[in-house]
């Protein structure tokens, strides 16, 4: 009843991938290219990695990435710029960028990507040169292993240790112990945002993830155009709590549910559904990173109060959670300036300005007392669930790097979703 095409799967992409990688190894030319790409000696990035099998970083299995070179010296002179930043769209407050430009008398060029895969592709292919890059945590190890990132000189980033939550300071996060290649940018949970003027809180609390399937919100549903978050949340809704699963049946089910949501409830895959189009009134329910809904007030029409914005996240805090990072690619032409940029964005003042005046994404700053954000009016009462405390990280589900096989399953499901029903 749900879907016209119940029985499916002919060739699984997993089989195919295994086959083609095997085939590639058999082809001298392809093998030569492979060999040229992966320099021997840099592949043991993740601790305890054995030949062939990569060890994937997880909160319960943190990794210390190998240092393949020395960081730049602390007395490296400041470059003249421009500083080239490669980031998601609408992820940094222009006022903060302007402040950096003024302080260091350089110009900043921001190149944007729409999703992580696009960002990685262009960076790896050398088609975008960047001094600063904002990868998600699941790509950090891979980038470091490929020598795409340069180790950081912590002397140049004093704000890191001074200002950040212990979870994020010592010994460093699970994906990069000792902060060898990354500094944290912002933290977020992934939940459900909704218009409180159309859906009462009690209904949202009762429905949770099922809100996406509510016929009352037909044609006004937005879901992220990002395969890990989209499928990850649907897996959770279906009771599957491993956000990094390789369970083909579970992924298949999540995919079918998303297709049902699209075809029967008119859901749309967007990237701006939460922060722009929900406040503008186009959407009633939208999958939301907590920072997006906090930043959504800047898109509210003038006569609409902030309290129309609501955010649901599981009451037991067992939902998707994560943080983004800032890194310096190894090909950076202005590495010293890049270090200053990292330090600037970790600065208590500017980090807070970036969060509170525009971006909406909370930095894990010691100086921010989560309980007080609502009282201080930084976050409206109706969005109190969008505020993160340090303890959230011990309860939420974290999206780490997928194994190649699992990733193929996820991507296969995703291209079917994008093709529509």
């Amino acid at each position, binding site marked *: 009843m749900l879907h016209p*095409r119940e*029985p*499916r*799967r*002919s*060739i699984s*992409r997993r089989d*195919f*991938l295994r*086959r*083609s*990688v095997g*085939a*590639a190894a058999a*082809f001298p*030319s*392809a093998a030569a*290219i*492979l060999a040229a*790409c*992966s320099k021997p000696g840099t592949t043991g990035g993740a601790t305890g990695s054995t030949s062939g099998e990569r060890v994937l970083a997880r909160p319960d299995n943190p990794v210390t990435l190998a240092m393949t070179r020395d960081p730049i010296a602390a007395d490296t002179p400041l470059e003249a710029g421009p500083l080239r930043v490669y980031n998601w769209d609408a992820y940094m407050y222009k006022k903060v960028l302007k402040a950096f430009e003024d302080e260091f008398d350089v110009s900043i060029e921001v190149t944007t990507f*729409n*999703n992580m*895969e*696009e960002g*990685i*592709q262009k960076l*790896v*292919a050398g088609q975008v040169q960047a001094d600063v890059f904002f990868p998600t945590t699941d790509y950090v190890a*891979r980038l470091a*292993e*490929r020598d795409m990132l340069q180790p950081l000189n912590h002397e140049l980033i004093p704000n890191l240790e001074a200002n950040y939550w212990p979870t994020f300071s010592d010994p460093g996060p699970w994906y990069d112990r000792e902060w060898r290649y990354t500094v944290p940018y912002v933290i977020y949970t992934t939940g459900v945002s909704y218009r409180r003027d159309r859906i009462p809180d009690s209904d949202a609390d009762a429905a949770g993830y099922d809100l996406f399937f509510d016929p009352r919100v*037909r*044609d*006004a549903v937005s879901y992220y155009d990002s395969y890990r978050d989209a499928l990850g949340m649907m897996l959770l809704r279906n009771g599957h709590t491993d956000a990094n699963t390789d369970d083909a049946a579970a992924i298949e089910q999540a995919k079918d549910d998303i297709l049902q949501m*699209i*075809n029967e409830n*008119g*859901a*749309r*895959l967007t990237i701006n559904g939460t922060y722009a189009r929900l406040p*503008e*009134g*186009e959407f009633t329910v939208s999958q939301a990173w907590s920072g997006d809904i906090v930043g959504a007030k800047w898109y509210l029409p003038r006569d609409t109060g902030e309290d129309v914005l609501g955010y649901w996240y599981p009451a037991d805090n067992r939902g998707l959670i994560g943080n983004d990072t800032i890194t310096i690619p190894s090909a950076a032409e202005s590495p010293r300036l890049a270090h200053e940029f990292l330090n600037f964005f970790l600065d208590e003042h500017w980090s807070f300005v970036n969060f509170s005046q525009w971006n909406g994404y909370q930095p894990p700053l010691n100086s921010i007392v989560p309980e007080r954000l609502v009282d201080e009016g930084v976050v409206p009462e109706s969005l109190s669930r969008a505020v993160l405390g340090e303890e959230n990280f011990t309860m939420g589900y974290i999206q780490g790097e997928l194994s*190649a096989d699992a*990733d*193929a399953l996820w*991507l296969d499901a*995703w*291209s*079917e*979703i*994008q*093709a*529509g*029903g």
Partner: protein
Amino acid sequence: MASGAEDAPARSGRAGADGSRTSGAWFPKSYWPSFTLPASIWLAVFFVLPFYVVLSVAFGTVDPLFRTPLPVYQPWWWSFATFSETLQKFVGGDPIYLDPLIRTILYVVAASAICLVVGYAVAYYTARHAGRYRGLILVLLISPFWISYLMRIYSWQSLLQPDGYINDIAGIFGVVPIDWLAGKPVTVILGLVYGYIPFMILPLFGFLDRIDVSVLEAGRDLGAGALETFRRITLPLSKPGILAGVVIVSLPMFGDYYTNNLLGSQRTSMYGNLIDNAVGQAGQQPEAGSLVLILIAIVMIPMLYYLHSTRRATEAS
């Protein structure tokens, strides 16, 4: 054939059998070909060579870590696994790409038909009845060319918002607000029409404008009614314009993805979306290459038909 001075008015047979101009006896044989050389080299490097790379990517493999493509340039090492897997998605037991293909064909046919009917009416009126407003109407007809297509679709996105003007206007007539942007085929089709119809109107206008009024008057003098004159004279004479218009309008639509991305949803995904998604997705560039190859095969027939008929028309003129 006849020599230069005489055949000029007839504009045919200007070239000798060996390809050199008859009146240009002192030309080195390579004189005229050399004119075509720069553009030919350009096309060879930037039009033909890319297709070889598409083949190499489609029949190649991907980097195991970042899933970036690793093209294989030696045909004897090509692997057709991805290609046949992609093909399976259209014709196999689980044709997940069949729906977007069928949708694309339906949307393109519907949009081209609307373009033709509306475009013909507008072009006909402008060519025949516009009178002193003709210049003004022409300028207005051409004006969309000067405004970015993206900008025009972008403004529709605003107008079609739930609180946009279209719903406001509909509200006057008591229509409840419609979520036009929630993956409605009608929105996508009209978006396509909006974007491409100027390309239909201009060639039609060109051909309709060239029809000699005296021919029509002759037809009428001989007792043909207006509809009859239209059917027997105007329509046949504008047929090349119709063909050119339909081809120029429908072929790009097959590759359109942005109209749907801005005005539709995954429910209205088209073939272009498949390609665009695959190009931007990790590990899927070989599939993107395969999709491009399949699209080439699909549009090849109308393309060749068009090229064939234009060549025939050129030869005839």
